[in-house]
C-alpha cells in the first residue's frame, strides 16, 4: 500500500514518455502528408488547367504570356542525367568491385573514406569548380560557349559516383563468401568469379545503386544550374545549353507570381511524384532480390 502512489506516478511518467516518443514517430507521417498536400495544392491547378500532356510534353515555355510547357526542361533533365550516367555508372561499379574484391583491405577502406568526402562536398562547390574549370575547357577545346549538356554531365557524374559506389560495394560485400569459394574451387579464375558469380549475385543491390544515382542526378539543382547555360529550349547537341526541371524552379522562383509560380510548383510536383515512384520501385526491387541475404 505504501508504495502504491509512487508506482502509479512512475507508470504515469512511463506512459507519458511512451506517448511523446510515439508522437515523434507519428510526425513522420504528418510531415509527408503535409508536404504532399501543399505541393499538390499549389501545383495541381496550373497542371490541370494546361492539361498534363501539354504541360509535360509541350516545349513552349513563355511564362509571362501564360504558356506553360516544360517539355524542353523534361528533355533537358533526361539528357543531362543519361549522359552523366553513361560514364559514372560503369566507373562507379568498377570502383565498387575494386574496393570490395581486388584492393588490399587498407586501400579499400581508405578509398571508402575518400568516397565519403566526395559525397560530403556541397553541390555549389561542384558547380563552382565546373563553372571555372569544366566550362572553359569545353569552350576552348570542343567549341560552343561551354555551358552545355556535356558540362552538366561531367559535374553530375562526379556527384552521383558516391551513391553508385557505396550501394554497389555494400551489395558486393553482402554476397555470401561460399559463392566465391565454390566458384574458385571449381577452377574459375578470380576475374571469372567476379564477373559470373559475385556481380550476378549482387545484381539487385547494383540496380538499386543505379536507380538511386539516377534519382540523385534528376533532383540535383545547384551544380547543374551553374554549368548548363539554362536556355529553355530542347537541346540538339551535347554542346548545346540546356535547362533542367530543377534549374527552372530555382531560376524563376525569385520573381514568379500567380500562375507562373503555380507552374513552377507543377514542375516540382512532377519531380516529386517521379522521385517518390522511383523510391517505391527500388524498395520493391530490394525486397524481391533478397538473394543476397540483405533485408
Amino acid at each position: 500500500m505504501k508504495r502504491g502512489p509512487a508506482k502509479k506516478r512512475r507508470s504515469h511518467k512511463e506512459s507519458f514518455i511512451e506517448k511523446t516518443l510515439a508522437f515523434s514517430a507519428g510526425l513522420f507521417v504528418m510531415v509527408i502528408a503535409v508536404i504532399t498536400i501543399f505541393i499538390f495544392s499549389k501545383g495541381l491547378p496550373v497542371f490541370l488547367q494546361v492539361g498534363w500532356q501539354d504541360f509535360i510534353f509541350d516545349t513552349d515555355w513563355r511564362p509571362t504570356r501564360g504558356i506553360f510547357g516544360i517539355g524542353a526542361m523534361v528533355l533537358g533533365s533526361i539528357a543531362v542525367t543519361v549522359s552523366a550516367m553513361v560514364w559514372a555508372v560503369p566507373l562507379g561499379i568498377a570502383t565498387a568491385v575494386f574496393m570490395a574484391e581486388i584492393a588490399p583491405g587498407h586501400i579499400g577502406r581508405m578509398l571508402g573514406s575518400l568516397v565519403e568526402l566526395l559525397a560530403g562536398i556541397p553541390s555549389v562547390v561542384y558547380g563552382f569548380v565546373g563553372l571555372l574549370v569544366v566550362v572553359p575547357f569545353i569552350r576552348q577545346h570542343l567549341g560552343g560557349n561551354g555551358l552545355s549538356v556535356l558540362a552538366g554531365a561531367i559535374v553530375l557524374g562526379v556527384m552521383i559516383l558516391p551513391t553508385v559506389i557505396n550501394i554497389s560495394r555494400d551489395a558486393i560485400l553482402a554476397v555470401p563468401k561460399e559463392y566465391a569459394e565454390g566458384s574458385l574451387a571449381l577452377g574459375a579464375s578470380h576475374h571469372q568469379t567476379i564477373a559470373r558469380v559475385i556481380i550476378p549475385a549482387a545484381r539487385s543491390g547494383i540496380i538499386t545503386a543505379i536507380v538511386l544515382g539516377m534519382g540523385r542526378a534528376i533532383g540535383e539543382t545547384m551544380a547543374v544550374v551553374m554549368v548548363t547555360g539554362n536556355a529553355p529550349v530542347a537541346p540538339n547537341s551535347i554542346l548545346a545549353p540546356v535547362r533542367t526541371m530543377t534549374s527552372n524552379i530555382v531560376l524563376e522562383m525569385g520573381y514568379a507570381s500567380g500562375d507562373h509560380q503555380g507552374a513552377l510548383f507543377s514542375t516540382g510536383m512532377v519531380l516529386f511524384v517521379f522521385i517518390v515512384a522511383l523510391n517505391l520501385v527500388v524498395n520493391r526491387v530490394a525486397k524481391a532480390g533478397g538473394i543476397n541475404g540483405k533485408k
Partner: protein
Amino acid sequence: MAKNKWYDRMITAAFWSAGLFIVLILASIIAYIAVKGISAISLDFILQPPSRAGRAGGISTTIVSTVYLTLMSLLIAVPVGVGSAIYLQEYAHSQSRFGRLVNLIAETLAGIPSIVFGLFGFVFFVVFLDLGWSILSGSLTLAIMILPTITRTAQEAILAVAHEYRENSLALGASRWQTVSRVILPSALPGIVTGIILSIGRAVGETAAIILTAGSSLGMPIAPSDPARTMAVHLYLMAMEGISAERAFGTALLLVILIVIINYLANLSLKRFSQAVR
C-alpha cells in the same frame, strides 16, 4: 595459358585505374580550390561583414547564418529523430506495420530533391505559417531534410546495443524508460553522434532549399525571424553574378575545410562507436 595471364593482368590494371581515377578527381577538386582560395582567406575575411553585395569585406555574416541555421535545425531534428528511433526500436517493433511505414517514409524523404523541400518550405513555412524568409523557416525545412539520416543512424546504433544489457536492466527491476535512458542511450550515443555529425555536413552545404526559405539577405541575423544568407548561398550568388572570384574561392575553400573536418569527426566517432559496441 600465357595469353590468359596477360588478360588477367590487364583487367586488374583496369580496376586499379578506376580506383585511382576516383582519388584523382577528389584530389584535383580539393587542390584546385585550396590553391586558388588560400590567398583570399585571412582573419579579416572571416571576421569582417561583407560590403557592397560581397564585392568587398569578409563573409562573417554568412558564417554566422550557416552556424545559426545548422544549430536550429539540429535542435528540431535531433529530439524528433532520436525519439522516433527509440520508439520504433524499443517500444513498437521496427518490423511492425507502423514501424515499416515510418521507415518507408524516412527512406522516401531521403530521396526527395532539395529543391522540392525548398518549394514546400516556401509555401508552408514562409507563406502559409507566415514566418517569412527567415532563420526559422530555413531551419524547419532543413530539419525535415536531415531527419532521415538522424533517425536511421540512431536506429542502427540502438539495434547494435547487446540484448543482454537490455534484459539485465529489465531483470533488475528497471522500468522501460530507465533502461532506455540509462543503459541503451549511453551505449548507442557514439552512433547517434555520428548521424548528427553527418547531418551537420548536409546542413552546411545545402543551398537550393535555403535560398527559397531563408532568403539571401546579407545582414547579421539576430532573431530567428531574421532572413539570412549562408556561405553556400553566398558562394552561389557570387559565382552566378560574377561578383568577386577571389572571395568566391575563399568561401569555397572554407566550406571544403569545414566538410573535411566534419567528415574526420564523423569517422572518429564511428570508430569509437564500433569499439564501444565490441
